[in-house]
């Protein structure tokens, strides 16, 4: 196991959306702050920093996690996926993103990256989720703008796609 000095900055490297990245982090630096401030990837948003609102949700090694409850040093050597990595390789919106737009599933867009990542995680492990499974995932996020109706409609549409 790598030894860390609490007062020192450490070189951290991981794969972000398929690309090798690295930067410097004190052991206490949150992964959200590392992504946003050290790497300049500001798509991951910070809403509550106590794990409830879900805006900062990202995927690490294929599992959804709260970026605000994860230290940057814990991500060393892992595969990290964020909202910036969702669009198709040619830059076009993917099916989930298109469904969000069609169903007006976002207004201010601040909670949206977290919801997109949680639903991406759901569809990755359960391509045809039930209504209850979708509710369970969306229920882990706070959205203040939409009343969730558009989010549910978008998720149902993707769940029903062949």
């Amino acid at each position, binding site marked *: 196991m790598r030894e860390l000095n609490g007062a020192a900055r450490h070189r951290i490297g991981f794969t972000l959306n398929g690309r090798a990245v690295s930067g410097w982090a004190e052991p206490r630096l949150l992964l959200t702050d590392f992504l946003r401030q050290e790497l300049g990837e500001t798509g991951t948003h910070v809403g509550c920093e106590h794990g409830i609102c879900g805006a900062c949700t990202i995927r690490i090694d294929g599992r959804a996690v709260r970026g605000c409850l994860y230290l940057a040093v814990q991500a060393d050597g892992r595969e990290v996926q964020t909202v910036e990595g969702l669009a198709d390789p040619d830059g076009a919106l993917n099916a989930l993103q298109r469904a969000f737009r069609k169903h007006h599933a976002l207004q201010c867009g601040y909670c949206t990256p977290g919801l997109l990542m949680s639903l991406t995680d759901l569809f990755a492990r359960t391509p045809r989720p039930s209504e209850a499974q979708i509710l369970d995932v969306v229920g882990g996020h706070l959205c*203040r703008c939409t009343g969730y109706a558009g989010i549910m409609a978008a998720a149902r549409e993707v769940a029903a796609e062949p």
Partner: protein
Amino acid sequence: MCFGLVATPPVRYNRTTPREGREPARIMTEIAARHVGQPTERTEDLRLLRGRGQYADDLAVSPRTVHAAILRSPHAHAEIVSIDAKAALSLPGVIAVVTGEDVQALTDPFLVALRQPLHQWSLAVGRVRYVGEPVALVLADDRYLAEDALDLLSVSYRELPVALDPAEAAQEDAPLVHEAAGTNLVSVRDFSYGDPDGAFAAADRRIALTTRFPRHSYMPIENFVVVAEYHEGDGAWDVLANFQGPYSTHPVMARALRVPGARLRLRTPRDSGGSFGIKLAVFPYIVLMAIAARMAGRPVKWVEDRYEHLLAANSCPERVTTIEAAVRDDGTITALRFDQLEDYGAYLRAPMPGPLYRMHGAMTGAYDIPNLAITSKIVVTNRMPAGLVRGFGGPQLYFALERLIQRVAVELDLDPLDVIRKNLIPAHAFPYRAAAGALYDSGDYAKAIEIATGDGRLDDLIRRRDAARAEGRLYGIGFAAVVEPGMSNMGYLSTLLTTEARERAGPKNGAISLATVNVDPLGAVSVSADCMPQGQGHETVLAQIVADQLGLAPDEIAVNLAHDTGKDPWSIAAGTYSCRFTPGTAVAVHKAARQLRDKLARIASNTLNLRPDDLVFTGARIQARDNPDNAVAFARAAGVAHWAPATLPDGMAPGLRETAAWTPPELAAPTEGDHINTSLTYGFVFDMCGVEVDPITAQVRIDRYVTMHDSGKLLNPLLAEGQVLGAFAQGVGTALHEEFVYDSEGSFLTATFADYLVPTVNEVPRPEILHMESPSPFTPLGAKGAGEGNCLATPACLANAVADALGIADPQLPMTPKRLHALMAARDEPAP
């Protein structure tokens, strides 16, 4: 200081471009509404869905920037005896500590709408008055270090007695929040319209109830962000913040900083992560960070965290209302009497006490009630200062008024819907002047209710209720009829003052919107305007409006609503609040685009040798109405104004940049008799629902919810529906979940999302939404404000349904299981 405006005569509204020498005649080119009214998908989504939004905390800052953290008061009321910053300052990486003494030396207290000594600075000066009040600011190389230093600050307090409950705080012997004011009850105003005393004397019945509307906040998921820099060379500040307006607060900030407004450049980012009124309250922090930046000689960045936000950012005021109706036995209400006590917390921040007066002209709601008495009282307490929260005085009013309507029905043994119908303003009465002065623009309330209850919807609710009750279950039906105001009269707050005081201060009225549309030498169109969108989709709607005017496609219109007070159009009403976008900014953009169209038509008429009236704008061409082949490309006509100004028609200014201003004449100043048309547009919302209360857990389940809206012409139905859905979810939160709770010493008990319950998808069903359109005659687009209706209607509608389900008279908000359980237990207790 007087921000008074002189009423502008209607004739000037058509256009105002001072740069042009004279006013050209209105050109009647044909305009097809191809895009306005369509459910166009949003252009904003294309960046937001990719994680490429431009929120305040995403934007680059100077490498010299330092980071701020705030120490906050642990006491609800205390003297600050001393602040020892030595240990904090000795921490490596810490640059400065700012205290109340610095702030008192370098700034003036914020202006207050009342002539009362309720001094507030951006940090506590001498005394703290609520838990969470900023006491000191630490600047350090990064935020982590700044927070480390907070732990090393040592503050000694001497605790004082607290005033928390609004009614108790209003008593004469209550501890004083501001000693200099000599009382906590800082304003009492009595109003009378018609003959309320006569109507009450003649009434068959007098029916009254008291409601308490609780403190809460529709807090956005993005917290406050401020980046401030001081430019020594020109003695001016440059601030970026996710502020939302109203910009009547800009002079308040500039005055506090002791500079002319032009030396406080305030920029807002293109994207804001929600606001719902809340981000007005970033303004004291703008002043604080500005002072800190000047002291440090470096730019200062502060990002609020959720704990700070819950603790101290903003709350709606708590209102205790006693409302009484003079009623005939048939359910006709002949008079209303309101006694309103509103708690604004420790300070009266601008533009408070807005919520108490924003609905003033429209206190009679959807009903034709000619006699009205209102007593409006303002109390200060040792709780966080109140401010803007979506609905802004409307939820407080309608919780009392619509609960009263239900009580009238119960007491007279009438159907609540019959009491509503009997008192509704009739369709033929529009435009309708309400008792206290509101001029309702258009509507057909009875028809809206007929549509909502039709198609078996009401029958279904009754069937569900009857079936549930037959099984012994607790099921109730609720209704609420609500008039939804849009775009505030900037003069309404002066109703707070006596007629004499208003005369001394000068008249205040109107609501100015400003927008600029620009066409570049190659025909590319861009728009800037005086709104700060927080997710409403303003970019998309404005592109639809301009596209229709200029015969282009919406995606050919570049709209960037990042705003800069140094460069973009604005006046005091600027901002995104109180549903001013559709009746305000959208109209200004429409007018600016129309001015450009008129200009381009005259240019093209020269080229094509046709009268401007014979031209149509379509498909990026300007062409003869009856011969599409006789045409000039839009871009070519635009180029003439840039490349060949000498060939322009006589008197035409070169270039293609039009700024339009709009203020409607209906928004007059309060009259001598205190009549005030508080808003420009008045939509209508009718809600009905069925709920079931679990007899064991006392949880409320929303079984079916129908919401009917008349918001005039819908500019984009997809986005209008989004506004309804969002406001509904917030209304559900108010009704069932959300409340800021303090203990008996004023400590704050709801400072995490585990304690303060924002509804998730599991708590928010999808309501059935219905629309009808009664276009407003007072705006060129016919559109009304549409963003707040369910914040007004839903808490009242759900409370009425719960009251019906449980047979109780006093369902208080939020109707949590704990509260309902107590009410059910009291109801079930046998009489002694």
